[in-house]
């Protein structure tokens, strides 16, 4: 079991860090905590929106504690607000969470968790933790980054949800502080090194972004993101030969934090 996990992780992240800088080990922790705090504050907006939609404070908090994936939480609150079919609302909210399955596929080998630790880690597989973990140069940093981001974001998101549900949003919206830009800016910073270093990565990113923008007007919010997955599949198909002959190159792609601007 442990052997399997070790092998697949070794495939994914074997590239050595060519330029270990001072304070390198501290970066995943510091960056993870910073991102967790900054993004977690958006829980204020979610808490306020959820209660405004007709969810109780307990229901708003239960979603943050147990679903812990923003897009799905907003989607269910939106359905309740619109008075739509709850069953349909549940289905679309859950479907919105399917991108986390794809993230988990990528993170499984890196995290290499079993038993109770795996049940806990699963809760933390979301956009922010995946972006932070996959931007690291080696497996140890990836795991550290995942847990630091997850722990901080989980605490902040849940506290902010409660505060937002209780009305704290009245004292200034996250948007006024520019916090709505934190997510996209952070994701861009985290995929930046991979975009610089890989043509396949650039193609997948451009394809994904174009598909999402083209479909936004026609499908419910959140769906355009998952529709970007075929872009990754297409690029993977075109470049599969390259990956087959060069496990190291694939690892290098995963570990393109090498040239990270830090």
């Amino acid at each position, binding site marked *: 079991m442990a052997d*399997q996990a070790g092998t697949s992780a070794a*495939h994914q992240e074997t590239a050595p860090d060519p330029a270990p800088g001072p304070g390198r080990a501290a970066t995943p922790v*510091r960056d993870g905590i*910073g*991102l967790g705090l900054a993004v977690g504050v958006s829980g204020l907006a979610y808490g306020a929106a959820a209660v405004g939609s007709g969810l109780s404070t307990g*229901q708003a908090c*239960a*979603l943050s504690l*147990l679903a*812990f994936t923003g897009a799905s939480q907003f989607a*269910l609150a939106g359905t309740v607000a619109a008075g739509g079919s*709850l069953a349909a*609302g*549940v289905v679309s*909210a*859950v479907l919105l*969470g399917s991108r*986390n*399955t794809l*993230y988990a*596929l*990528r993170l*499984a080998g890196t995290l290499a968790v079993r038993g109770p630790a795996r049940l806990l*880690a*699963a*809760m933390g597989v*979301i*956009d922010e933790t995946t*972006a932070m973990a996959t931007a690291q140069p080696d497996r140890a940093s990836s795991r550290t980054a995942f847990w630091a981001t997850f722990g901080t974001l989980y605490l902040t998101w849940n506290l902010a949800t409660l505060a937002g549900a209780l009305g704290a949003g009245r004292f200034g919206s996250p948007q006024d502080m*520019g916090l709505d*830009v*934190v997510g*996209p*800016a952070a*994701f*861009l910073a*985290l995929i930046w090194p991979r*975009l610089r270093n890989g043509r396949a*990565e650039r193609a997948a*990113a451009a394809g*994904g972004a174009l598909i*999402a*923008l083209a479909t*936004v*007007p*026609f499908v419910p*919010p959140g769906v*355009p*993101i998952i529709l*970007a997955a075929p*872009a*990754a599949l297409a*690029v*993977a198909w075109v*470049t*599969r030969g390259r*990956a*087959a002959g060069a496990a190291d190159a*694939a690892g290098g792609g995963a570990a393109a934090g090498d040239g990270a*601007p830090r």
Partner: protein
Amino acid sequence: MTAVWAAVLATAAGCYGLKLAGLVVPPRLLERPLARRFAELVPVALLAALIAVQALTSGQSLQADPARLAGMTAAVAALLARLPFLLVIVAAAATAAVIRLC
């Protein structure tokens, strides 16, 4: 009330189940080159989609909010200047906040 609670708990169970499903897939299935390449590229494609949607849309329409665009421009400038990660997001948020104040 009870129906809403059922919906809340069903959503939570479904979302958690989807996350767990990806973690419990046998590593062997991911050893095929195409699957591994796909798993490698998925975060890039999806996060790029997320960036585009969060930066350039509002609800279901394409919308260029000047403050958000300025924030993203500041992020790109900070990245080109090779600033550390936290400074990149601070630059982006501060720029958007200042523009909204004006």
